[in-house]
């Protein structure tokens, strides 16, 4: 055994390895950011040209792939209606499920099963939810292709996201708050409605917004359920509709520059909507976070 004296510097090989890993880790981050910047840059650069009033107020009716002009009004209307309907279905079911898991489940077998399948449901491919609605709603029940069918498919994708975020928020509500209410003799359900849900409200809203942002960009389920149309259809319950992501897919598939330009502008509009939802949700979270109050 060599007797060491003083502070022995570490070997240069170890130092070099440490440095190398540091460089690799920084590089990994750069590698992840490059595609993001590239996507955002191209979407803005190629999309801004057609982001005009005509685009926002006109449909594609009577406009061929080769023609300039035309817009995504019908697609924007469709997306808004579909996402709204999907939220109307998914939020109550998701929220109630979260309430069950937090307040009534008590760690029993049913609640563990539900919890497990909520996780598994997060992994259901969006195209599969579209196929399911196609098989069940359109083929078996004989309903028409419609915005509502699309909303059904989207709601399946939203549910697990809503459950998870609401559950997390409900679990953050302090015990004491509940117990104070129980101590006053308030029944459990009223405590949940009057105390627990309002306390968790902003958190739940944020979760719903993130869920909406997730499904607003989904294309595959719409393709199978709302079909594709170039005309305005304000009625989500009857006949083919359009959706913004579907519009991008449709235009991108047409082999002309004017169509591809419209696809970029659609993509820009879609990204603006989705990013805005994300940003607002994050801001709310950040604004409400305990870290900021410290």
């Amino acid at each position, binding site marked *: 055994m060599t007797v060491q004296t003083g502070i022995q510097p570490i070997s240069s090989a170890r130092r070099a390895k440490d440095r190398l890993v540091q460089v690799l880790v920084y590089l990994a981050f750069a590698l992840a950011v490059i595609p993001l910047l590239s996507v955002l840059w191209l979407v803005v650069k190629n999309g801004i040209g057609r982001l005009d009033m005509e685009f926002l107020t006109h449909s594609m009716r009577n406009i061929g792939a080769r023609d300039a002009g035309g817009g995504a009004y019908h697609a924007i209307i469709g997306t808004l209606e579909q996402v709204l309907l999907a939220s109307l279905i998914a939020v109550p079911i998701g929220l109630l499920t979260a309430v069950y898991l937090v307040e009534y489940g008590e760690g029993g077998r049913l609640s563990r099963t539900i919890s497990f399948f909520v996780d598994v449901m997060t992994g259901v491919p969006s195209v*599969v939810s579209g196929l399911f609605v196609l098989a069940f709603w359109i083929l078996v029940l004989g309903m028409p292709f419609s915005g509502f069918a699309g909303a059904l498919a989207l709601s399946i994708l939203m549910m697990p996201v809503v459950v998870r975020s609401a559950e997390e928020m409900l679990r953050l509500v302090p015990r004491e708050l509940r117990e104070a209410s129980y101590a006053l003799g308030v029944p459990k359900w009223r405590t949940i409605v009057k105390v627990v849900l309002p306390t968790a409200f902003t958190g739940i809203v944020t979760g719903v917004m993130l869920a909406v942002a997730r499904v607003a960009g989904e294309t595959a389920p719409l393709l199978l359920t709302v079909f594709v149309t170039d005309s305005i259809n304000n009625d989500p319950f009857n006949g083919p509709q359009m959706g913004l992501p579907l519009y991008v897919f449709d235009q991108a598939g047409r082999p002309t520059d004017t169509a*591809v330009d419209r696809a970029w502008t659609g993509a820009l509009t879609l990204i603006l909507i989705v990013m805005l939802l994300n940003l607002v949700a994050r801001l709310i979270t950040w604004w409400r976070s305990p870290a900021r109050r410290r």
Partner: protein
Amino acid sequence: MRRSAFRRSRGDGPFRFASTGAGIVLLAIMAAIGVFLVVKAVPALQANTSHFLTELTWQPNATEPVFGIGALAFGTVLSSLLALVIATPVAVGVALFISHYAPRRLASALGYVVDLLAAVPSVVYGLWGVTFLVPFMLGPSKFLNDYLGWIPLFGGDTVVGRSMLTASLVLAIMILPIIAAISREVFLQAPKMQEEAALALGATRWEMIRMSVLPFGRPGVISAAMLGLGRAMGETIAVALIFPATFNISFKILGPYGNSIAANIANGFGEATEVGRGALIASGLILFLITLLVNMAARFVIARRKEYARAAA
């Protein structure tokens, strides 16, 4: 004791009933997905004149329908695995960057930047893929083919931009944020006690990470990668725009080959007849089952890790 008092309180019954019901609805939806896909797949499978699991061609709209999942399943698995191999190391690097390297003040903001990758809709990645990445990849692909062509994956006589490699790259970008986000969370949870133990022995930062952070985070990273794999397999629109939609089995990832179950559904739905739709639904059923298995496996790994973390605490 207390609980039973609440159970008796008036008005609680309906509310409990509704919330339990909502949970059961969720389970029912999962079951219904399986059931209705089977119901609509069976007639098409009966009309099939070939073996569904092994046949490569896809002609369900013909008068004598011939279709099988062989080539599609192969493409799905190959593209997702390639995406996983590309994305996981980068995602682990990104996660370490945020958890252990980036300056504290910037870490969460930089983490958010990576999360934004997940917020970009897949159709936008598809558009970006066909218009930018496909032509861009031609150069690097030729380079790989010229210099590493002796590796079977990079071999072949034709090299194109619309290849398995380009599609896998787009998939990799799309699953990177989810793998990075989960890995980051587990790395941040690595016990400070063990990190300090390593540092106090005279470990460098990397040695500390290797001794205490990575062993702790490994199950988390594995399940994150599996969740990413599930995502990649189900990803539809982006790859539908990129794949050349061929129906063969080829390992030449630079060549003009490639397709996947999901991409085929998106591309084939428009012209599908009744049998055609049934065939697509049958392929979707297979996709559902594969992703279900991958996801369940990932969740079991996570659950095991939670127990381990609890036992260690």
